């Protein structure tokens, strides 16, 4: 998986971009937590073989959550969620879902260690990596999507293997296989390449700007928040 710090940074950027009037410290914390959540399947891999980047990275959980959220807030006559947590709560729920998918799963799928998108219905790790250039000699060259590629996958993407053949080493599980290996050397990646450092720095700077502005413009709203 991409470093969890990078997932959190993208989560923070999405929180700043999409929360709108629901933006406050607590809402940002929830959205960032949702972006970090998928990486917890590395812990599950200690018991379930090959759960890393599969169990919580598959599309089914967010699809189901999105369906329920849509049904409750848009289709039903009276939304239970809105009754309980109000407009803000509904907004935070949608943005947290977006962060789970885009910030939590996305960086692993695009050039990370790959994601087992359809697990457990269909077992294959997918990776979107390649190039898309226009050149005066070769015209348009695109290698992200490969139709009819070899491998276990059913989506037209590069596949890395199945839970049997492909193990992802993580801090929680250094060899990627079930069972504790207490003596093994563990590495916790914070930033793996330059661009990830740029993303983390941008997220920190963005949040700093937003929190400062928030504190300056609506102290009155914070008071109202407390009294409610």
């Amino acid at each position, binding site marked *: 998986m991409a470093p969890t710090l990078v997932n959190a940074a993208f989560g923070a950027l999405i929180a700043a971009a999409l929360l709108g009037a629901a933006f406050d410290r607590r809402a940002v914390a929830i959205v960032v937590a949702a972006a970090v959540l998928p990486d917890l399947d590395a812990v599950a891999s200690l018991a379930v073989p090959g759960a890393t980047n599969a169990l919580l990275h598959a599309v089914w959980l967010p699809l189901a959550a999105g369906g329920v959220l849509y049904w409750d807030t848009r289709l039903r006559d009276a939304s239970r969620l809105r009754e309980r947590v109000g407009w803000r709560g509904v907004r935070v729920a949608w943005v947290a879902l977006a962060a789970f998918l885009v910030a939590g799963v996305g960086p692993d799928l695009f*050039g990370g260690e790959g994601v087992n998108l359809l697990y457990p219905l269909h077992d294959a790790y997918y990776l979107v990596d390649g*190039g*898309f250039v226009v050149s005066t000699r070769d015209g348009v060259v695109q290698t992200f999507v490969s139709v009819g590629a070899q491998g276990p996958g059913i989506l037209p993407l590069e596949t890395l293997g199945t839970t049997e053949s492909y193990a992802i080493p993580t801090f929680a599980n250094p060899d990627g296989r079930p069972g504790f290996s207490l003596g093994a050397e563990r590495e916790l990646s*914070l930033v793996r390449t330059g661009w990830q450092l740029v993303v983390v720095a941008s997220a920190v700077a*963005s949040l700093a700007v937003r929190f400062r502005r928030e504190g300056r413009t609506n102290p009155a709203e914070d008071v109202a928040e407390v009294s409610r």
Partner: protein
Amino acid sequence: MVSSVVHAGFALLLAAGLLGDYYDRRALAVVLVVVVVPEADSFLGFVMPGAHRTVGHNLVLPAAAAALLYYDTRLRERSALRERLADRWIAVAWVGLFVHAFAHVSLDWIHLEGVNAFWPLRDRFYALDGEILLSTADGFVQTFVDLRTDPETGTRTVDAGATGTTKTVHVNNPVEPRDPDEVTDEPVNRIFPIANAGWRLYLIGTGLFVLAARRLQDRTPADGER
């Protein structure tokens, strides 16, 4: 250059988070112009060797612009800008500076030979590359900046990824696809990259996702209904 499309995607993500009440088409258009214009230094390459990634890709000019903007709009008693521009455009100018530094210069800093970060004060290209990790064997490890002490002379050297000066570095771009000093018979191949790695496609996609999500979101209800 990292493709302008990638810069634009990341810029949209950042701008959506920072524009606040001023988020609209016109503000986004200004941000996109800010992203594209620095690439014009590719054309200066014909008159000034090594101009690309130097004139439009340093941290000195944006810092100077930020200082001027701060002085004029905050410190002066009568601001020349505030008399001519509405508050919204001053806010957009700040966002433009932020986006230029983080979505443009920073992303090029990590790509190929990097950027001439301190030009015109100092003529030296820097390329940022490395990783940061915590390891149970080695503790905290970072390889972005290489600090070394020579065991014999005791002098300390700092290597932050310097790659050369405007005289020695030419960063290939569609306008000048190869170093003009290089003599070769090969036909010219101009490459216009759109996304040359998975993560660059991801940045484009995330920018577009945020644009779409902002359109689909319901309006913020008035205070009474929240």
